[in-house]
């Protein structure tokens, strides 16, 4: 199985590579369009600020090809947010795969949300053998509201999308690569698709 982690200069992707390695696979870090298109599974990571990450993605031309990919694609954290219509962070236009707009938590809660929160209302094969209310690890100030594509919910100030899915596109707000055994299981489920 050829697993490609899109390497467009947005943050720490070493942990995702290691998490996949712990499952017994090798992942390639690449920004090569052909390599991404020919992968069996594509992982689209991202940490940091939305508009600068999107700029880097555009500069590499990868923004054009992601929405046309046919194999399973997993966006993680900011990767997931960039797959939405837009983000309030830096007024960023997204890839428009998930039909929702990313917004910021209010000051009613501590921002960023950092730590282990629970996921519920699990609706996808990537949550096979994951129990309702399982804890996963998140670090974020912006969130995708609940929408048609929501496949897992979490609660912080309000209920929001902890994961999204549309066709072959998956996105998790949480970091499966840092979410202990549960995260490893979710990654394995994705690779099994």
């Amino acid at each position: 199985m050829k697993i490609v982690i899109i390497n467009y200069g947005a943050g720490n992707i070493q942990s995702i590579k290691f998490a996949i390695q712990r499952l017994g696979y090798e992942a390639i870090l690449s920004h090569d369009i052909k390599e991404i298109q020919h992968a069996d599974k594509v992982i689209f990571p991202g940490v940091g600020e939305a508009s600068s990450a999107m700029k880097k993605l555009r500069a590499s031309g990868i923004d054009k090809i992601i929405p046309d990919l046919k194999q399973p694609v997993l966006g993680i954290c900011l990767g997931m947010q960039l797959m939405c219509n837009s983000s309030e962070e830096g007024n960023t236009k997204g890839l428009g795969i998930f039909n929702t707009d990313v917004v910021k938590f209010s000051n009613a809660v501590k921002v960023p949300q950092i730590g282990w929160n629970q996921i519920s209302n699990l609706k996808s094969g990537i949550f096979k053998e994951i129990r309702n209310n399982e804890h996963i690890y998140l670090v974020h100030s912006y969130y995708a509201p609940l929408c048609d594509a929501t496949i897992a919910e979490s609660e912080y100030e309000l209920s929001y999308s902890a994961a999204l899915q549309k066709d072959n596109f998956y996105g998790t707000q949480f970091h499966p690569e840092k979410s202990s055994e549960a995260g490893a299981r979710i990654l394995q489920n994705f690779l099994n698709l």
Partner: protein
Amino acid sequence: MLAKRIIPCLDIKDGRTVKGVNFIDLRDAGDPVELAEIYSKEGADELVFLDISATEQKRKTLAELVYHVAEKVNIPFTVGGGISSVEDVDMLLQKGADKVSINSSAVKNPQLINDLVAKFGSQCIVVAIDAKRIDGEWIVHLIGGKVPTGRKLFEWAKEVEERGAGEILFTSMDHDGTKDGFANEALARLSKELNIPIIASGGAGNMQHFMDTFTIGKADAALAASVFHFKEIGIKDLKENLKKNGIPVRL
């Protein structure tokens, strides 16, 4: 519900764990990677590695250690100790650290916080603050509490937040090593005046202290070293105890 976090802290010197560590099942008590794996399996929510070495080789050794921890450990970890530039942070994050913690370098050059946040994002920048009371006033200290600065804790913490830090790790030098409980009054005030997560550090001696720092101290996470290293408190037992007492934890 967001869980309260339990964070063991490992002191590292030249790539090895220092301070006695009392783990019978540990093959090599000085191996930080093995210790990290054990803590992770016991249910630690995060780990902090504090580099206290001061040799020329330091950076390279620390970078290698970070790489090996990232390879093995599936929970987030923070690296701190002597980090003073954008380049230092870039290297540690590239090797696989999730967050970095800065302390003295931020006090000496507060703009560093802004620079790091602009380049790497708030989510990975922790500012550690050591403070102790002098004539009733909390004063920020450097070098493990030895050197007082002109900065007052609450003003500095506010500035750190405004400059974009994602989290504050507050150590009370009055409580550190006492095993007499955390500085809950100061912690609660930090939580009230700031809107970023606060990690409590210094003073953990028993399970009730953790309970108190989450309820009275309003802390989002609690960090400790010796009570975990010497197995005075087991992480799993601690979390079960907290849960029984109504504190949200990950079990």
